[in-house]
């Protein structure tokens, strides 16, 4: 059921309700907050308007703390790619929805990085695809993708790797049906789903 929930809102589980429930600082800092949202924030007594100029943020990425100066509207995606040079997180340049090419893991959950603002994920543990490769040491999902040729152009691949990693962390013994459901938040255009499925099944069966 968890996975069903994910699919409806994308891997991030991001929806309007969550957004409104989220930290009041984040709501106000978007600088697009409606009067209603502002009133809600005030009620909680934590309204702290930030921006529109640059603000200091600290992001915990791949176990390291990074101090950045970004506009409050800067997405996590842009902060990772343009400021930290973590370009494994791919930008598909959609401003309204997403293919999942920018999937990262935040506090254990697969999330589209373009659907989070950098300022709202401070204090959370952010993991990017680069963390799955440490010199010659490769995560089994990466080797599994290569062994099953789960890639063509490779643009969606890092996002799919992260979605697969997060999903298998939660469901290490996943079945085919669970894999097809749980990885339904990402899109590949070249058509590499067969290899991705084979990779996830191989790991779930302990064969990686």
């Amino acid at each position: 059921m968890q996975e069903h929930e994910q699919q409806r809102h994308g891997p991030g589980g991001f929806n309007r309700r969550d957004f409104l429930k989220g930290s009041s600082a984040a709501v106000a800092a978007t600088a697009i907050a409606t009067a209603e949202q502002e009133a809600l924030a005030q009620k909680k007594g934590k309204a702290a308007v930030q921006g529109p100029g640059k603000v200091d943020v600290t992001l915990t990425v791949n176990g390291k703390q990074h101090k950045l100066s970004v506009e409050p509207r800067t997405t996590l995606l842009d902060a990772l790619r343009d400021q930290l040079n973590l370009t494994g997180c791919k930008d598909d340049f959609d401003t309204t929805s997403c293919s999942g090419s920018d999937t990262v893991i935040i506090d254990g959950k697969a999330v589209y990085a373009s659907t989070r603002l950098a300022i709202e994920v401070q204090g959370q543990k952010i993991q990017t695809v680069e963390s799955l490769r440490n010199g010659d040491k490769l995560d089994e999902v990466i080797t599994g993708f290569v062994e099953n040729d789960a890639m063509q152009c490779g643009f969606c691949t890092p996002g799919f790797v992260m979605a697969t990693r997060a999903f298998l962390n939660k469901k290490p013994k996943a079945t085919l049906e669970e894999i097809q459901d749980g990885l339904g938040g990402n899109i590949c255009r070249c058509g590499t789903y067969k290899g991705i499925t084979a990779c996830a099944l191989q790991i779930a069966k302990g064969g990686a």
Partner: protein
Amino acid sequence: MAERTIAWGPRDSNKLIGTETTRLDGVDKASGFAKYTADMNQEGTLYARLLTCKHANATITRLNVEPAKKVAGVHTVYLFKNEGDDCSWDGDIVAAVAAETADIAEDGVRAIEVSFEVKPHVVDEQDLEAARAAEATKEEIVNRTVGDPDKAIKEADVVHEGYYGIHTISHMCLEPHGAHCSWNDGDDGPKLIARHSTQAVSTTGKQFASKFGLDATDVRVVCNFIGGGFGSKFAADEWGWAAAQMSKDTGRPVRLMLDRATELKTPGTRPSGFAKVTLAAKKNGVITAWKSHHWGTSGPQGRPIDGNQMPYVFDPENKHVLATGIKTNCGPNRAWRAPNHPQLCAITDTAMTDLAAKLKMDPIDLYKANLGQLDKVAKENGDLYRAQLDRASVLMDWKKNFHHQGEGGGGTVKRGLGVALHRWGGQSVKCEADVRLFEDGAAQVSIGSQDLGTGTRTVIAMVLAETCGLPLEKVTAKIGSSEYVYGNPSGGSITVGSVSGGTRRAALAAVWKLLDKVATKYDVDGESLTVGNEAVWSGEEKVCSWKDACRLIGSVPIAEVGTSPLDDGLTSKLVGGVQMADVSVDTDTGIVRINKMVAVQDCGLVINEMTAKSQVYGGLIMGIAYALSEERIMDNKTGRYINADMENYKLPRIGDIGDLVVEMYQPDSEYNRGVVGLGEPPVISTGAAIANAVANATGVRVPVLPMTPKRVLDALKGGQA
């Protein structure tokens, strides 16, 4: 044995060629280390965003970019159009703004003052009479009669009339079109470096050069990785020039990538095709006449799909083909994986299956009955289709599972099978490969080529390693820069043939030079020498190791450039291919599910079976996309492309593809004819095969692709076969 002829080795002697080999750049791609155009974080990079026209047909009456220039952080504005210019579709690009961040560039775009005089538009590509009323048609683009079709129809045992169609789709490259450009004011190296997302590393530079008055050698095009192209990324394009110009103006690197909506609307689509078809046949299934009138759009130019190839693959004695173009205010077309073929197939093979149903024939038998009248291209495929139909039947268990049209079961979910077939050229073109052997034993091949996902790097490394008798990890393969020797643009399924032919030729020449040195040093007959297992051999006897042999090279490496294609058996042309679909149709909801797809595909000598199969899997999945969900949806009232985003432009997800079974058809006759490209063919007949399976399941033809739930339900309500 060691005769020095340009050829592939005996099939059973290969260590690498024909094996399933994982990609050399697989780890880099999967771990995010592979750098694409938008991943170049050069110091000081400026980011560009675009202003596009939101009207289908309009004239710019006012365009003031001064407010954009005043936005803090905006550095420059590039005008694609000026006041008085026309915009001919929703998404036509007007201007680009470059700024310190993408967000600031968007502020700049919003600050531009622009007004349009909006004019009437035509965006309906299916309603021919409406297009005629709007005077938007180009009549009789093809009007061709062979034999006497009307007489043949009158005399036929059976006549089938039907309506078929397939909508426009976009390329939807996940990495949008774009470039990252920087100028170099030093004395050394190129003046302009264009990190361009391109299928044509070796030919795009001159388009930048001529635009900026440079010599071709002053421009370097770099594309180590490209995030999808599918036929739409051959040119420098005005956005490439814009990035270069803005970089020149500001002295800063500029990254300009199309936003997702513009990516779907502007840099190319696959044209639509709708057709009324009449087919006549004898009782035995032999088609005696074909008549069709098709129409559709390629956007403002109004070209329909190629009438000269209608009907597809088969060429009855009597035929009449009429084609009408519709000029629309929709984005223009570009080559889309197998230009014309998927549409031709979706019109021809669907009509043939309906004819088979009328004859109460198995469509496979109908195909076989007509193998004697293949068109002049497919004819060269000989008996290929018979063998491939038989093989696919086995893989689908067709004989056991086939039923006649409409006998898909009594419940609400009906199951059915469909089949279709295709052809493609794939002949290699001019391509050079630069092979070098070094004194330390290193072997390298470099080509100004690119990897669209086919695995170009791995293919040329496999060919070089095989030819040198080395393991794959001991050779180096370089592509993705125009500083290397000329590589062909990757379009038309020509790359694997072209690069492997050139690499084999160069590698053989280099190895022969090395063997001459070994012959002199060890006083053996050079003609008797071969390489293998990292050593040089004279018959069964080891003469020296590869490393020892290479020590004889000295400080000047052996360098050979090989060219493809030559008529030497390394490469060939023409492929067939048969696909079958097994689907379930929910007649309550109109939802079609793929149970299984089978593809049997030839491509001559297979270099890397793993990446070859991946091409076919990919073709099947793209085929499932345009068969069931993917289309450009134009809104007649506003003239806008209303689903230009990742969410509403419906592509299949990982659970939507069913069980895919792919078999490379490769008897020795295929190996012996050499390498043929593979990119396009596997996407061609998928749509028709799925459409035929839906008709087989329900007994009702869903005439137009994609077969969305609404179209399926509409067809079921209409009920006409």
